[in-house]
């Protein structure tokens, strides 16, 4: 299986013949082109058009992060998997409100199922969570009655805010969290969530690229607004499965601590070492395999994202109803 490459040190990324080389001050490291799934650039990396062309020709997405570790954009190679027929149907499912709601509701239904699964796991140990489980379940009932996307989004927002309010309990207040703040995050926990969610988003985007789906046409989020919004849609399903579980582990097992944040910037940013720890756990998670009964095979978490795209493709083409990935393990 191909791998993700995460480059955190400053270097030059070069094409030499048919291989990519990372050139550091003290030596260079080759990476075979056939081994690359996606590349994540965190450090200060120089690359030229020769390298970019080569990566694009091989259909490799490259994700860029700025000095603070914020996702800034992706190099999305020319689409080679195009199906006009699918795009027309993808759009048609957006234009028809009933159809759009059907997909959006299943996304939120799945996301809240996965959120509940996380909270219930910790409920066994932490009594205080019982009430919050109840409140999330109660709020989730509103999903079915939503008549518009904004109603659905409101419902999703409330579920998420109850969910985030469990984080202090789940992680024993090692870092104080309070409420979710983005752009920029205001404390350690928010910094971790932002970083994790951007890794989740990019992982989903890389998988969408491997399918015929158009990443700008989405259902829950408005299409193409600044971002590849279909990746945002599908991320809803995977944030609790990937980001949050990695986060709980990193904090609860004290893999990440205060020293991993940049103190001069109010602890809002992860330092290079902290980022590396997060990336390692996240990538291990993506590569972890579980038994997936419908295929009667073991598949990695990354493959689960691809399968989610396939299910959407089949739904959009009217072949079979989309059923989101609801954690059963």
């Amino acid at each position, binding site marked *: 299986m191909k791998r993700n490459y995460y480059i955190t040190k400053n270097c030059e990324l070069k094409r030499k013949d048919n291989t990519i080389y990372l050139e550091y001050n003290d030596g260079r490291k080759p990476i075979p082109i056939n081994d690359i799934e996606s590349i994540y650039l965190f450090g200060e990396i120089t690359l030229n058009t020769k390298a970019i062309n080569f990566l694009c020709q091989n*259909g490799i997405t490259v994700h860029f992060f700025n000095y603070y570790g914020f996702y800034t954009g992706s190099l999305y190679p020319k689409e*080679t*998997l*195009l*199906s*006009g*027929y*699918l795009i027309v149907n993808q759009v048609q499912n957006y234009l028809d409100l009933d159809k759009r709601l059907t997909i959006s509701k299943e996304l939120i239904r799945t996301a809240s199922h996965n959120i509940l699964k996380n909270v219930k796991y910790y409920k066994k140990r932490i009594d205080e969570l019982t009430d919050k489980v109840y409140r999330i379940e109660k709020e989730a009932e509103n999903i079915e009655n939503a008549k518009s996307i904004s109603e659905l989004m409101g419902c999703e927002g409330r579920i998420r805010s109850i969910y985030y309010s469990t984080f202090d309990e789940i992680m024993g207040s090692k870092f104080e969290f309070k409420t979710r703040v983005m752009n920029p995050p205001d404390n350690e926990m928010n910094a971790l969530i932002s970083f994790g969610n951007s890794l989740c988003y990019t992982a989903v985007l890389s998988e969408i690229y*491997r399918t*015929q789906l158009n990443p700008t046409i989405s259902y829950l989020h408005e299409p193409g607004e600044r971002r590849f919004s279909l990746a945002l849609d599908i991320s809803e399903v995977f944030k609790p499965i990937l980001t949050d579980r990695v986060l709980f582990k990193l904090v609860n097992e004290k893999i990440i601590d205060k020293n991993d944040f940049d103190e001069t910037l109010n602890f809002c940013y992860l330092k290079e070492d902290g980022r590396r720890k997060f990336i390692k756990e996240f990538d291990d998670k993506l590569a972890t395999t579980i038994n997936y009964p*419908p*295929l*009667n095979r073991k598949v990695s978490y990354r*493959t689960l994202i*691809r*399968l*989610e795209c*396939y*299910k959407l*493709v*089949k739904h959009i*083409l*009217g*072949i079979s109803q989309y059923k989101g990935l609801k954690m059963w393990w």
Partner: protein
Amino acid sequence: MEILTNEVKITGVKINYFFYCKRQLWFFTHHINMESNSIDVEIGKEVHEEYFNRNKKEIAIDEIIAVDFVDNNGIIHETKKGKKLDRGDKYQILYYIYYLQNKGVKNSKAVVHFPLYNKKEELELQDNDIRVLKNAFKEITEIEKSDKPIEVQKMSKCNRCSYYELCFS
């Protein structure tokens, strides 16, 4: 020529998929192609590139068929990475012969090379094959025009198919 005037272009790959799996054919004709994820296909391409590299390769004719190469006697040569031809492969190559014969190439036949197994096999077009092909043209046109693929059916060959994850996810 009948197959050229058809509103649905019958390509060699479509013939192959038709005999392999009609559901796969539907996906393929609607441009849902899974083969870029397939390691088997990648290996096949490498085998293809490794052998016969002195001969001119991949001759595309009318954007309908693409034969590996044709020698001076008008004989089609194909390479396969496996050790035998399945029904889809066989009819794909028979279709090449049929197509070339319709274009006026005389005495055309095919030799299939299995370089990994050091053997080859000859194919000639029989009258019965022509009937089978003509029937396939008709059915392929219908499948391509239908708005849904046939229901998924689990067969033993599904496990090795590059569409497996799509069908069973």
